[in-house]
């Protein structure tokens, strides 16, 4: 019962999302479904990093009237992984946009979305 904390639930959910996304990206045939699986993989990765930085009993690292301005390092959770995840979300949207552009170009040249129809880039 003592393992049932908020941090452990976040970690388990994040790792399960990573596994589901990896399985989908490796087994699907449609290009658009591969990109959807990549989006799920990205969400799970961000959830793992945020859950690692959580400490029980502390509050969000933003100053207002209820926190005061003294002894802040004993009241707040770690803000550095949250800043990293904030950057990672934006980069993930950029990567998704580039992948969708490639998918659109591939569809316009070959009129197909199946990954087995594009064999000349294999080696």
């Amino acid at each position, binding site marked *: 019962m003592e393992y049932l904390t908020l941090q452990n639930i976040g970690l388990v959910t994040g790792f399960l999302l990573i596994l589901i996304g990896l399985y989908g990206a490796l087994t699907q045939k449609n290009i658009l479904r591969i990109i959807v699986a990549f989006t799920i993989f990205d969400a799970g990765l961000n959830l793992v990093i945020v859950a690692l930085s959580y400490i029980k009993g502390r*509050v*969000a690292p*933003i100053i*207002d009237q*209820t926190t005061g301005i003294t002894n802040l390092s004993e009241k707040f959770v770690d803000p550095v992984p949250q800043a990293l995840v904030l950057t990672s979300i934006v980069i993930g949207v950029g990567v998704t946009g580039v992948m969708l552009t490639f998918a659109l170009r591939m569809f316009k040249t070959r009129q197909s979305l199946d990954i087995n129809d594009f064999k000349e880039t294999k080696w």
Partner: protein
Amino acid sequence: MVEIILYIAGGLILLGMLTALWRFVEGPSSADRIMAFDAMTVTSIALIALIAFFNNRIIYLDVALVYGLLSFTGVIVIARFLEKGL
């Protein structure tokens, strides 16, 4: 007394979210799924407000503000996609 009433309210809101999710899984057409998505977004605004009350931080209400401002643009884009012609 006040907290017990608010816990019951939170349970009802969560139950409403799960019920809308059933329509998302079941839905015969795409418009049903989009409607369930919209209902879940609006319901989660109320859930975020309750979480902000229990944590006693006003900064959490800003998340609900972002939801209320930006959630409808996605639904409008998908509806225009169904109407053929974005």
